[in-house]
């Protein structure tokens, strides 16, 4: 069987586990969804009718099977607030989250690859210290602190960028930097370590012995092979971008899935919480899957069977 297809099939049990966990989690939330929809003053008859209409009177196992079947068809139920299909609500917000994650990821890579490479190239000198210092500071600055710290100079004092919202391209800058800085710090450390590892490898000595110029050795051999481990971590970090987006979207009122999740939790809109968590987790699994596939493409030595053998 094609290795990529086999790897994709291996993600299915994880997705099944994720869906199962999400379903039972949501059913543990204290409080009755019917109360949320009708209010506590509703009559008993109305409650029974609505309970039957929502399928909440059925045994839990039956509801679970129904949830799995519907979810597999893209039907995530309806919002308790206004009856809108959950999948439509998420579809409306997903592009904003993907745009934010893509912008943050691109910014992180654009900063981390040159900075990590320069740091390794000038190991032990002030440029290395500066890059390493940036990496540690960036990794220690949580989103919820960095966001307001950026808003203050760039939005409030200088007025260059909007404080919140998603009305223009400029609105994307601060959320993307807030979300991407931590990732760029982590990737900078990783690129530096990987380039240093590569520079001490035998094939670099061979390349130098062949008479290749130092920039060619560095760019074509050391940096290129160092980007392989970066690809792996990038996949993991892309997944955590979806998690970090929850806080960043809240700070900047960015209309994405993360903010929708928190709004759903606040209003106890269980099907919407369920759908959002499921979609974010699936995005995480997909990011990891794509990373594995990209890894295979980038490094033909990688064989799935060997990698997964424990």
């Amino acid at each position, binding site marked *: 069987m094609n290795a990529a297809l086999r790897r994709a099939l291996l993600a299915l049990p994880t997705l099944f586990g994720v869906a199962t966990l999400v379903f039972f989690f949501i059913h543990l939330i204290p409080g009755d969804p019917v109360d949320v929809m009708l209010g506590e003053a509703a009559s008993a008859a109305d409650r029974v009718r609505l309970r039957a209409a929502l399928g909440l009177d059925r045994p839990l196992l039956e509801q679970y099977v129904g949830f799995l079947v519907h979810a597999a068809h893209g039907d995530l139920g309806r919002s308790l607030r206004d009856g809108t299909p959950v999948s439509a609500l998420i579809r409306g917000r997903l592009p904003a989250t993907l745009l934010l994650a893509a912008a943050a990821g691109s910014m992180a890579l654009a900063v981390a690859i040159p900075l990590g490479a320069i740091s390794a190239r000038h190991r032990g000198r002030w440029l290395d210290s500066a890059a390493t210092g940036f990496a540690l500071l960036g990794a220690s600055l949580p989103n919820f*602190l960095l966001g307001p710290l950026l808003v203050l100079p760039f939005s409030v004092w200088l007025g260059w960028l909007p404080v919140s919202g998603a009305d223009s391209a400029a609105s994307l800058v601060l959320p993307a930097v807030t979300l991407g800085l931590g990732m760029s710090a982590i990737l900078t450390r990783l690129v530096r370590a990987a380039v240093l*590892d590569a520079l001490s490898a035998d094939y670099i000595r061979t390349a130098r012995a062949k008479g290749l110029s130092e920039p060619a050795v560095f760019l074509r051999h050391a940096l290129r092979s160092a980007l392989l481990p970066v690809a792996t971590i990038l996949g993991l970090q892309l997944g955590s971008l979806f998690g970090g987006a929850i806080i960043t979207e809240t700070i900047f009122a960015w209309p994405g899935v993360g903010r929708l*999740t928190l709004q759903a939790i606040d209003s106890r809109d269980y099907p919407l919480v369920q759908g959002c968590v499921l979609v974010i*987790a699936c995005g995480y699994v997909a990011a990891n899957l794509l990373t594995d596939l990209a890894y295979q493409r980038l490094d033909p030595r990688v064989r799935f069977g060997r990698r997964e053998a424990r």
Partner: protein
Amino acid sequence: MTASARLGAVLVGSFLAVALAAPLLAPFDPAQPSLSENLSPPSLAHPFGQDRLGRDILSRIVYGSRASLLVGISTVAVSLTLGTALGLFSGLAGGWIDEAMMRVIDVLLAFPGILLAIAISAVLGPSLANVVIALSVIGWTGYARLVRAETLSLRERAHVESAIALGAGPSRVVFYHVLPLLAGPLAVQATFGVAGAIVAEASLSFLGLGTQPPAPSWGAMLNEGRRFLLVAPHVALFPGLAVFATVLGINFLGDGLRDWLDVRMPVTGYGLPAIKKTSNE
């Protein structure tokens, strides 16, 4: 010890001292309002200023360190104990038990850490104890993976095989021949774990799902201060700097510890992933 590790030790030591001696160090009652002085800027009497209810921000930061310390230490203690036990069991048992454990971990790691913590906190209700539970549900997986991987490698080592050949029972093998060799990597991971848990607690409190008012928490203070960023930036700034200094200190210390113990670490858990040390550093 490097300069950054020394700075980390000083920052972490200060954090611990402030948290433990909070009643002695806080100049005011952290819950005492003074509405006539709300949002007052820093002054000699109130070096970090006052919040929207006129409470002393310095005193609230001093007391807020206790929530961070409690969550950081408790989460790591629970996650470390659970993760080590399950990782050892999985690595030593092998077969379907190991496979099942890895699949459970795969499913838990399929959620971004903070998302699962938010979902669990929403289910359990907002409180400090529930934050520890929520973070531990995810936190143990990092330790379990590390311990399992190390156990799989250690059980093939000559000293472990010799001990088994000499008739050592499973508990003797674990406590005398495997666990002592895991202490270094676990200590490094636990150090980064404390930083991750402190950030996660502050994030949950920032979202209203952690420590509940009027109890002081750095994340909740930052969230409240965000609303007054235009008129009173100090309300958000000082709690934010407290989180930053603490996390930076722990990361410096963790880096130093990793270099000192010469530990190679995978990327694990929530918070700052520990990046592997290169062979030529």
